[in-house]
């Protein structure tokens, strides 16, 4: 009886959807390049394009962190506050009161390590609240966003911080390596490392497993809580590093540095195909999302759009792009 095996009809749907989805933003980026070329002759110069990448490098690190968090099935809204708080904390601990510091007199070289450690600490608090106490990631990290921003306001008395005497913290944001800004190298290197890690290593793949079905991942021998905690911490450290790069890039850190960034971070990730439900999307897609947002910004600036309207136009373009991405990939963004 058993040798009469009726062939099970295998589902062979939409060829390699995942792969196509990865590349979904490339046409949009090409269109933007053409539009930019029409808008301004300097747009398609290597100087301008490198400038775009540098402008996006800080947001890029935040998007990288957020994408990892989303893939593992969690959410972290507090990254935008960590971005400002971590370098601000490092600066007030080092700077004298005359430069709006606390006058504690920590040696200058501690600034970058303190900045990154602040990221570790914030990520650990998030992980404790969300994973151990099982609180809702959305509302908790929203609370953290507000608390951390408030902490920065309190520490700096609402002042922006800058100092000519902190070369170590300023280094990453304005150094040039092999003729190209260090922040561009860092942005590209971190994405390449992360793409390789989640694409070709068992521990990296476990992020997708956890985001796709946490109970199943656990059954498969993955330490789901530990992996998720590490991801939350890494994301906060990336945001702190981005903050350090901003100090050097812009020369100062304002009291509401990074305000509103979380929308751009989510938009870039979702544009790149990362699912808010976890387990889906690629870091390459997220990187394309970041670059696309940068090109839009750049074109708007080159086209001399009235700065008072910039926010509205930028937001509308992102929403339009999300709609377009939904239509071209044919898949629901969830």
């Amino acid at each position, binding site marked *: *009886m*058993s040798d*009469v*095996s*009726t*062939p*099970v*009809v*295998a*589902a*062979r*749907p939409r060829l*390699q*959807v*995942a792969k196509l989805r990865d590349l979904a933003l490339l046409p949009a980026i090409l269109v933007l390049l053409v539009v930019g070329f029409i808008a301004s002759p300097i747009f398609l110069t290597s100087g301008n394009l490198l400038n775009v990448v540098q402008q996006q490098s800080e947001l890029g690190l935040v998007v990288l962190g957020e994408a990892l968090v989303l893939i593992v099935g969690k959410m972290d809204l507090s990254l935008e506050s960590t971005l400002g708080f971590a370098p601000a904390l490092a600066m007030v601990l080092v700077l004298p009161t005359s430069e709006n510091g606390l006058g504690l007199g920590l040696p200058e070289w501690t600034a970058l390590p303190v900045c990154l450690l602040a990221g570790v600490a914030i990520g650990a608090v998030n992980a404790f609240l969300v994973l151990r106490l099982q609180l809702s990631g959305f509302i908790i990290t929203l609370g953290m966003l507000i608390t951390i921003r408030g902490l920065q306001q309190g520490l700096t008395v609402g002042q922006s911080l800058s100092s000519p005497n902190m070369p170590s913290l300023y280094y990453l944001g304005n150094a040039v390596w092999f003729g190209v800004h260090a922040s561009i190298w860092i942005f590209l290197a971190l994405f390449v490392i992360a793409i390789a890690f989640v*694409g*070709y*290593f*068992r521990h990296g*793949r*476990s992020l*997708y*497993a956890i*985001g*796709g*079905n946490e*109970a*199943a*991942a*656990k*059954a*498969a*021998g*993955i*330490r789901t809580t530990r992996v998720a905690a590490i991801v939350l911490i890494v994301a906060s450290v990336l945001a702190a590093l981005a903050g350090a790069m901003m100090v050097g890039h812009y020369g100062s850190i304002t009291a509401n540095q990074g305000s509103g960034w979380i929308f751009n971070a989510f938009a870039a990730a979702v544009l790149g195909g990362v*699912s808010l439900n976890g*387990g*889906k999307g690629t870091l390459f897609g997220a990187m394309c999302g970041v670059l696309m947002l940068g090109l839009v910004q750049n074109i708007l600036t080159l086209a001399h759009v009235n700065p008072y309207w910039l926010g509205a136009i930028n937001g509308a373009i992102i929403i339009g792009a999300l709609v377009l991405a939904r239509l071209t990939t044919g898949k629901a963004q969830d």
Partner: protein
Amino acid sequence: MNAVEASNITKRFGQTVALNDVHITVADGETHALVGRNGAGKSTLVSMLTGLNRPDSGEITFRGEPAPALSDRQAWRTKVACVYQKSTIIPTLTVAENLFINRQNLDGGAVISWSRLRRKASDVLGEYGVDVDPNVEAATLTVEQRQLVEIARALSFGAKFIILDEPTAQLDGPAIERLFERMRSLRAAGVTFLFISHHLQEIFEICQTVTVFRDARHIVTSPVADLSKDQLVEAMTGEAVGLGAVASRPAVGSESVLDIRDLALGKHFSGIDLSVRRGEVVGIAGSASSGKVELGEVIVGLRKADAGTVAVSGKSLKPGSVPAALAGGVGFVPEDRHKEGFVPGLSIAENATFPIAGRLGRFGSISGRRRDQVAARMIDELAIKTSGPDQDVADLSGGNQQKVVMARALSSEPDLLVLMDPTAGVDVKSKENLLDAVDRAAAAGAAVLVISDELDDLRPCDRVLVMFHGSVAGEFPAGWTDNELVSVIEGIGESSGE
């Protein structure tokens, strides 16, 4: 040597005692059956034996060594492989990656070679006769394909001790046969199995020893050969086996409720015509590839047909719309209870009364008291084992979840009931309750379509249609013999009685 020995295991979930001082010993090399009614505690024991959950008290040893620490997931994996009752396939990953989840590097170093992984996956799938493309996302698999992938994964893992928690509940006949052949050859190679199933004939077919749990307690452990089927049922239920009262329904009405004309859906089926009359119970049998489930899903609006019409009580249903089907008087039990059957996190009462929420109170409000009354009646009629109507459906045992899905389908007293594998995972005794409830619905004038390859589900039907590769291959009035039906299901017999 014993592959596993668990003693004095107790586990509570709040008020519920899921395991009460139970013990089980599985000797090396045997295939050991664990049976019991829905909610007896079988799956809870499985979660203890695979390190997903800690017993409140008790001790577990593997070949004499104490069980690893709960946090050491890797150590547990070397002791035991498991097919859980609830799917552990990750829908967003490919089939290949699911097969080798958390060992994608194939013990070959740090970096994953995807081409090698895909090749190995093809080999494993081929070896187990699973005709699935390893490169597709697991989300696109049918319930049965998912189960097959899961089984292939557990068996190919190389573990010496394998637990299978109701692996056959979603499989058709030939697939079950293939599984058993595999299990026999692995047993010959020294592999030990703990096998859970509600199909008692399977216990007699491949197990040597059987342990019975009832109401969270250990009742008996005995060689299978020393027990008759009735004795087994008696141990499970605690009652002597009575003669199942032969249900007698009033004569089938003359007006037809369901009318299907020339229905077709892609490669699944085509040219289906079918009418079901008031009070009639019609069975649809067929293997996994017959298209019977897809037909059911088209009728209830889970899928959209390419051609043809579905009409209920003379009115055509809007294709591909579940709300339209529900409004048109359809109640249904879907194939995949976890996806379309219930909402985890909500109570039994809420889940069972979804279709009638609008009738439970005035102006869109819901009267909690009336809802609980309705739910309490359902719990009683369908023998749902629960601490009360407020219990979260996600905390019920698998078979009891299935009963809640059935309760939901019945709650609106629909004109047409479409039941896809309605008794999957339901114990022998509860099956009778479920089929009785179907009988009552039919007696009250509903037309019923039972889509299943369980002969027990099909036996009470007024007639049974057999589908084969997308079309109707035979029709049998009540009174068919198992052999004639099975041979048409498997495509080797002539259709008789047409």
